[in-house]
């Protein structure tokens, strides 16, 4: 097990390094000169050169990339002499737009994205798995067909359309929810919670639909398994046949998919956060792309890649505990 884990972590580091390199190269080659952007309208060529030198943009690609990596692990210093700025590890640089440290920006916004992701995950797991089970048990009946129709709708409706519809219905027409306004948790937990209800629903709908289908299909497949016939032939009570022999094999694959989906969302739910004006990592990504704020784009890309890769390893490790066939092979 420790050897297995060490191998996985090494592979994970390799993938992250490649993501770094690739993202860095894309911006180095494709994007307009950041020094010109930073300089603004009333700008002199001297000033541009000075900015380039301060940010190290005048140096070759590999030097810049290695400096970036160095900053990530050991921190780095921008500029020289009395104007020098020390950026502590993990240093992702400074936003071209706001001059804020990208690391600080992420740290500030991550809790919002995590809140959105966790709430939505709870919702879609509950709804998806339960309705998937109901669909499987009632296979072929009107209940099953209705659920299948609903999942099709859930999968096809775009987030931003659903967000608008919900806002109109729940806030404007029915007035069940207050108009969304950023309220810190400490100030008014109830209000804070109500603010997140719509984002949670909007984000969860698509996933819930996908999980309903996944669960339904897995359960129906498992019910055809020969070992279920064995369980019935042993005279086990239906409760035991279901819980031990049908649900465990049927729900194990859901764990894999969930790990990946959830990890992906920690890197920010771009559309949902933007539509609801939530100041999370996803909105930050959208804003930075719109303004070509390279260090920020780089930061959120790395963050998202980090969560996906870590999520992958976590799922693999969890799998060695829940599937005995994997456990022994590992």
């Amino acid at each position, binding site marked *: 097990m420790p050897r297995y884990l060490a191998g996985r972590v090494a592979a994970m580091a390799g993938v992250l390094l490649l993501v770094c390199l690739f993202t860095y190269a894309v911006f180095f080659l494709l994007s307009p000169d950041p020094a010109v952007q930073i300089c603004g309208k009333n700008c002199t060529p001297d000033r541009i050169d000075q900015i380039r030198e301060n940010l190290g943009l005048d140096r070759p690609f590999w030097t810049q990339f290695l400096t970036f990596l160095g900053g990530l692990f050991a921190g780095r210093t921008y500029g020289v002499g009395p104007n020098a700025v020390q950026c502590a590890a993990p240093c992702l640089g400074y936003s071209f737009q706001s001059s804020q440290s990208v690391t600080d920006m992420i740290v500030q916004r991550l809790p919002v994205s995590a809140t959105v992701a966790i709430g939505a995950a709870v919702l879609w797991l509950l709804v998806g798995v339960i309705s998937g089970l109901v669909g499987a048990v009632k296979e072929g009946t009107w209940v099953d067909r209705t659920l299948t129709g609903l999942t099709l709708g859930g999968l096809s409706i775009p987030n931003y359309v659903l967000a608008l519809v919900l806002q109109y219905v729940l806030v404007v027409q029915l007035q069940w929810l207050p108009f969304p306004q950023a309220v810190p948790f400490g100030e008014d937990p109830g209000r804070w919670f109500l603010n997140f209800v719509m984002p949670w629903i909007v984000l969860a709908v698509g996933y819930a639909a996908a999980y309903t289908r996944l669960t339904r299909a897995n359960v129906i497949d498992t019910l055809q398994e020969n070992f279920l016939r*064995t369980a019935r032939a042993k005279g086990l009570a239906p409760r035991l046949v279901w819980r031990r022999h049908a649900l465990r094999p049927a729900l194990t694959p859901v764990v894999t998919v969930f790990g990946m989906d959830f990890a992906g969302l920690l890197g920010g739910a771009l559309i949902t956060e933007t539509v609801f004006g939530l100041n999370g990592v996803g909105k930050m990504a959208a804003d930075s792309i719109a303004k070509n704020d390279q260090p920020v784009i780089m930061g959120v890309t790395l963050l998202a890649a980090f969560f996906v890769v870590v999520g992958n390893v976590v799922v693999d490790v969890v799998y060695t505990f829940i599937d005995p066939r994997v456990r022994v092979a590992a």
Partner: protein
Amino acid sequence: MSITTTDTKRRAATGALTVRDLTVSFPTATGSVDVVSHLDLDLEPGSALGIVGESGSGKSLTSLAMMGLLPPKATRTGTVTLGTEDLTSMSEAQLRRIRGDRVAMIFQDPLSSLNPYYTVGAQIEEAYRSHRRGVTRRKAHQVAVEAMERVHIKDAARRADHYPHQFSGGMRQRVMIAMALATEPELLIADEPTTALDVTVQAQILALLQEIRRETGTSLILITHDLAVVSEVTDHIVVMRSGVCVERGPVEAIFSDPQHHYTQRLFDAVPRIDDEIGDLRSLSPTGDHR
């Protein structure tokens, strides 16, 4: 060993099985189709009956029908009596007490018939505990290990904690048999128990079934397409074809003098050592040579 007690023998002696006019049908687009029709079977306590037939002859469905394990769409008529009890008039809950306790089943593919998520010990214990109220886990585990020893699995105490994929095909089938034996059933229904196994392992499993019959006095229904298998293990044979019994009788009688055209063809289809290579005799749907 606790499995072969006199109590078992007495109980085993009570289980005469009588099947009368058993018909199983499935609905299709063009109306209902009988896959087993008007079948009668008789099994004396402690004896062994072979049900022989080609794929699709309805032999497996017959065994599932007897135990009330047919797919939901299938319908069943006729009566199945075990001892003095009519299985066909029982509620699902009553039938559950018979399944796995008085009548145990063994299936064709032991890998897919065992749940990959649980140790074989746990799966045997589960069978035992569901029929013995108030049994401790420890006692159930002990029964499982004994049952595994009974089917000659070496190092049974350690092997009980292993998962199905860690066993070979033959060993897995032994596990299935151990699971069936844990509750000391009076009737064992083995549905193609050796079909997925290679020939040497097949022989070992058949020898094991013989040994179990001898020592526990359990009756056996052996379902197979393999004539060699029934001739070794059973006393009586029922030959089935398209859901109908075409011939029945003692093994020796049928092997020495098959009466029905189909049975003769079935014997004729068994490859012989002096056959020319490539010369396989198959049976056409009407029972004639193609």
